[in-house]
């Protein structure tokens, strides 16, 4: 019974049905299914399948955008319940944002959702985030990891300046830095002095877990 419910949620997410996803997640919660299972076997499973279809060239950008939106709706319904559920100790604080001059938020939204599902306490600074705001946030929140996203070659080099500024202010040794976004690469991540590169949202989550020793 419960497996059918999870599959239905997963399918709704993959197919990008936002309203249906919200309703199905709510129904699953009303039926007292464990929030963490709804998350993993339902919404995360659905977005993972959408990602696989994208990689197999069976899904195009509009399809992925709708799946990501449905995923987001599912997460919004689920999030308060997840916070009430004891899911073990937090993996630590993760600050994330898209660098200044860059307005792309789809990739970051996916990373935020997956990090949340993995147990990180995520502070999302949003898009078009100036360098000072990243630095201030690191000072204020003292996160374990700070994640920088850039989705254009015109903005990606700013990540190097941010990492430098963290060093200048004596903050670099206390925080791990991850970078990601379509034009970035492992070589680029090494060049700018990041600790890890996320090839895609799922990879970013896995690398974050590795960084915190999980």
């Amino acid at each position, binding site marked *: 019974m419960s497996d059918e419910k999870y599959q239905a949620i997963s399918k709704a997410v993959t197919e990008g049905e936002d309203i249906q996803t919200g309703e199905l997640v709510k129904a699953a919660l009303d039926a007292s299914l464990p929030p963490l299972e709804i998350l993993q076997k339902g919404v995360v499973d659905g977005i993972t399948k959408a990602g696989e279809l994208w990689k197999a060239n069976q899904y195009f950008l509009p399809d992925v955008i709708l799946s990501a939106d449905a995923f987001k709706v599912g997460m919004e319904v689920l999030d308060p319940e997840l916070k009430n559920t004891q899911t073990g100790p937090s993996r630590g604080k993760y600050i994330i944002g898209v660098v200044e001059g860059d307005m*792309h*938020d789809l990739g970051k939204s996916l990373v935020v959702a997956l990090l949340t599902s993995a147990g990180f306490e995520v502070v999302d600074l949003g898009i078009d985030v100036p360098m000072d705001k990243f630095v201030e946030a690191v000072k204020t929140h003292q996160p374990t990891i700070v994640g920088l996203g850039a989705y254009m070659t*015109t903005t990606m080099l700013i990540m190097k300046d941010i990492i430098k500024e963290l060093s200048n202010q004596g903050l670099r040794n206390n925080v791990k830095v991850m970078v990601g976004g379509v034009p970035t690469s492992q070589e680029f991540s090494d060049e700018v002095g990041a600790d890890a590169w996320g090839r895609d949202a799922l990879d970013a989550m896995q690398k974050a877990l590795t960084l915190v020793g999980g």
Partner: protein
Amino acid sequence: MDNSKTLILACATVIEEILPLMPSDMKYEVLDFGLHVNPNQLRHILQETIDGANSRFDTIILGYGLCSQAIIGIKASCCTLVIPRVDDCIAIFLGSSKSYQNQLKTEPGTYYLTKGWIEVGDSPFAQYEKIAAKQGKERADRIMRLMLKNYTRLALINTGRYGMDHYREYARKTAQQFGLRYEEIMGSTTLIQKMVAGNWDNDFIIIPVGETVQYSHFYPDLHK
């Protein structure tokens, strides 16, 4: 520069702007515009095309920029590669990397259109009707709303090489339909003129035979 030994290899949208300025004895090849959404595939096809052509030419001029790093890793084993030192085609249309940076600073949430982009029809605006027909208006509207969430301006680049009325009308109508502010910005053919005349100054990267294109060719500051 021997024109007959020079090949221009360009994206379908960029060739539109190059053709009117290109010497008649120069050859060219065009690659599909749609490749830009998949940098790995674009890199693969660019390399394949260069491999197939480079023994017949002294120089291949690429009508591409960094293009989401699709250009990184490209090499030609028998000829020189010349690449404009730009992030993408918008800088080519605007005439320089500097003009592009200025535009990006002024209004980052800008969707750019050119004659080529409109004609190729591979923009979200052009896809809207197709998606609406296939998946219904509601889903198509949702896709557009999500895709354009952070966009405020639709800018049509006028490079001054052709009659703009038709494209202006299309861009204006599109902006209105999707709630964006329409603006026409003046482009420039400076970069393309230099490109086809062999006047490869600091706005161009010259890659010797056998050498691989690297990110630092575009952004030497990376190593500073």
